[in-house]
């Protein structure tokens, strides 16, 4: 693990499109706490599950190319990425190359570039969760979430397979919860932290995907969540864009409606560090997210937990 806060940055294809709010908020937090992101020159798409279903070699070659380019740029830098899907593809390619010298040489041949597989890959979540960065986040806070009840949603690609991801607990990850609590939110215990949102079917089978998304909202609602935090643009899109559509269906079925905005965890961090909603991209959500955020940031009640939250802020 690199000890510095300088990383070769793999933005991923959604970084300046559907994942724009993640990019903006993550870059905001990084800037505030001094994490330096150096974009990998001419990185390409990681291939995601489309490559995996098409061809095993393609699923290795695409991410390996970007990893090799990162090495070429600066062999001392670990790679950072926001998108969980990209994280998983990059980590898997590296894992394959690390299995044996044969595998590594095979990958070099595939991409026609030298690749040592020495540099590791980290997600923003893992990087910001490092103790030294938690300390920096704490020091940069100007307010807190005042006990906002947040369901941390990790999804699949950050935690599975555990041998590849090497990140947190596979069934009950805690890192995002701890970051939420760090900035004064209340991380609720719920059951869908690591259940699939159906994001990979967002376009090809939206009906099936919606069912998965609905279960996530349902469990969050039952367990009293006021907001959902995510660490992946695909999960975000799938939750945020579908909430209204789900409500339309639920209304017809006579079921209770959802009213839970989804945030990137970096947006929640950024908010407490003084980032404006525009700076963080919170104004770009499909499901209105500004009101609850505003409420959270201003002390809502004079109750004890507000005092506690101030303690945290201090």
């Amino acid at each position, binding site marked *: 693990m690199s000890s510095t806060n300088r990383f070769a940055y793999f933005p991923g294809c959604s970084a300046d499109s559907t994942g724009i709010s993640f990019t903006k908020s993550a870059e905001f937090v990084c800037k505030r706490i001094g994490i330096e992101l150096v974009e990998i020159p001419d990185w390409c798409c990681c291939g995601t599950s489309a490559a995996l279903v098409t061809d095993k070699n393609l699923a290795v070659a695409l991410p390996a190319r970007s990893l090799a380019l990162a090495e070429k740029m600066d062999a001392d830098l670990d790679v950072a990425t926001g998108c969980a899907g990209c994280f998983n593809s990059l980590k898997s390619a590296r894992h394959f190359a690390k299995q044996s010298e044969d595998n590594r040489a095979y990958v070099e041949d595939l991409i026609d570039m030298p690749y040592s597989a020495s540099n590791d890959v980290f997600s923003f979540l893992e990087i910001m969760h490092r103790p030294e960065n938690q300390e920096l986040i704490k020091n940069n806070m100007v307010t807190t979430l005042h006990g906002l009840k947040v369901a941390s949603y990790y999804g699949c690609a950050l935690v599975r397979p555990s041998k590849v991801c090497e990140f947190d607990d596979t*069934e*009950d990850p805690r890192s995002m919860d701890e970051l939420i609590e760090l900035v004064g939110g209340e991380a609720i*215990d719920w*059951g*869908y932290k690591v*259940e699939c949102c159906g994001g990979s079917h967002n376009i090809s089978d939206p009906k099936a995907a919606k069912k998965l998304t609905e279960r996530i909202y349902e*469990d969050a609602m*039952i367990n009293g969540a006021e907001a959902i935090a995510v660490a992946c643009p695909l999960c975000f899109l799938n939750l945020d864009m579908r909430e209204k559509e789900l409500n339309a269906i639920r209304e017809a079925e006579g079921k209770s409606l959802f009213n839970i905005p989804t945030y990137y965890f970096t947006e929640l961090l950024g908010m407490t560090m003084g980032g404006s909603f525009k700076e963080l991209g919170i104004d770009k959500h499909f499901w209105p997210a500004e009101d609850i955020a505003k409420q959270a940031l201003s002390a809502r009640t004079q109750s004890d937990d507000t005092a506690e939250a101030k303690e945290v802020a201090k």
Partner: protein
Amino acid sequence: MSRVGVFVCHCGSNIAGTVDVEHVAEEAAKLPNVAYATTNKYMCSDPGQQAVREAIIEHNLDRIVIASCSPRMHEATFRKMLAGTDINPYMLEIANVREQCSWVHKDKDVGTPKAIDLVKMAVAKVNYDAPLTTTTIPVNKRALIIGGGIAGMQAALDIADAGYPVTIVEKESSLGGRMVMLDKTFPTMDCSACICTPKMTDVGAHPNITIKTLAEVESVGGYIGNFEVTVREKAKYVDYDTCTGCSLCETKCPSKVDSEFDQGLAKRRAIYRPFAQAVPAKPTIDAKNCRKLIDGKCGVCEKVCPVGSIKFDDEDKVTTEVYGAIIVAIGYQLIDWTKIYGEYGGGRFKDVISGLQFERLVNASGPTEGHILRPSDNTEPKTVVIVKCVGSRDPEKAKSYCSRACCMYAAKHAHQYLDKVKDARCYIFYMDIRTPGKGYDEFYMNTQHDGARYIRGRVSKIINQNGKLICKGEDTLLGSQVTVEADMVVLETAMVPADEANQIGSMLGITRDKDLWLSEAHPKLRPVETNSGGIYLAGTCQGPKDIPDSVAQASAAAMKVAILFSKDELESNAMIANSNKNLCNGCGACVAICPYGAITLEEITARENSVMVTREISKVNPGLCQGCGACTVACRPGAMDLRGFTDEQIMREVAALCQW
């Protein structure tokens, strides 16, 4: 010139199926010094042995090679056979052409040449065999039993009834082990305490039995018939000679902690007996939680004790005694599922409990006085899900083995629940039903008649919604996903070895398997013996088993001890190390490497090169030496040799193999 007889066993088709035994015998006949070679269908049988005896006379043989199964199986048999002839029983070599040959190969083309090689080596070695004799060692007729659960108690009672003194070393403050924590026992549903506590009382009252509680074995030296054992009895802070067991102290103690006996479902005091029928029926102080012992404040128990039995200055008592035999009965523990199964909540949900917790919940003297109430809110659960194979048959997360008792105790739990709670539903998620045992499958069928619904499939995840535990499974017989909204979930967790198993195993020289269960000497024919003479196994320390099997094994181990104690002396091992004092330079490498402490250095004064010299040489204690041979390898001047496995013999074997 020696006259060797070679006898090749068919072992039915076990060997003959993969090795051309006739050809092996033909080739053996051509080897130097072989006077006679033949085959037999079953060498170990009476006719087989008789054939050898007759051949010895007819062909005037003076040493024997038997090509058969592993020497671990029948070497002793053939030695005994030779004892009735003119040949010394140690003029015998076994070529293992079964386990090391026929069983690992598939066809004769490979098996036969290898068998011939093995026989050649044995013949080369047997030519250098020398007659060996044994000595006798005394037997101390006192038995030590480590562990006071049902197996340890049964073994203790049997040995004590046979007239020999027994000491039980129990690490807890009472006898009883796991069995006394259980409510009822399958399949007869008799009350566990009702059949266990009388045994505890019998043990406590038996004139031949000494009980040491809160005690651990610290070290073991010596050998069969003569074990020197050091036991530490931890400070109890109560004088058992004067304490009447009135339990006034327990009612007044202000410090409350989770009761281990009630599996954290109830509280106990810092001065306590784990349960009402504890034996000895006297309390001990848990120093970690006693206010007086922590910071000197309190001392209420001392004030209220009517007989002045509280001793805050009590200290550990360490004693060393000699025993002739040791029975290990250290039992099992349940796997800590909370660290492994995050998908079942990892211990975050109060109403997801273990089977042992359920036993306490359903027990009349348990925390709820036998009313089945869920821990979170003390309400009666109307739907209970039972999940089997938690931690067992799960090589990825936990143990690969089947824990054996769970199918039955799961059925028992379902039966008890459906019996006590009216209008209840009980779903049991299972993979297979394994109920071999008298009355066991009938019991399982009755549970189904009680209304338990068996779902064939493992639960993938349990989530908590509105106080309901949503269990997600697949009914693999239906081929579709199912969910159950349960009020309480019981996880039937796997038995795993006790924490001490590894340490006690290594202290006593007992091998452990990959899961750290203590290994018996032979899985079929020596199920209660270990590879260390005089040390036996009883109960679940050897592997998961239920109460009847544990008790049967305990009585078997007790019988082995009684057999040992029926003799005043034992024959020592003939194949032990021997130091050539002319070659020994007294370096002491053998002393350091000997795992049994069998070698010492002693001073001798002798004439060497016409000068009187005093120097140290090594000496082997024939009682302690187990013939492992470690010293022979460590010995640089080549003074140390193992009888029956001399350097010369090994080199001859190698040479025989290489000359091919």
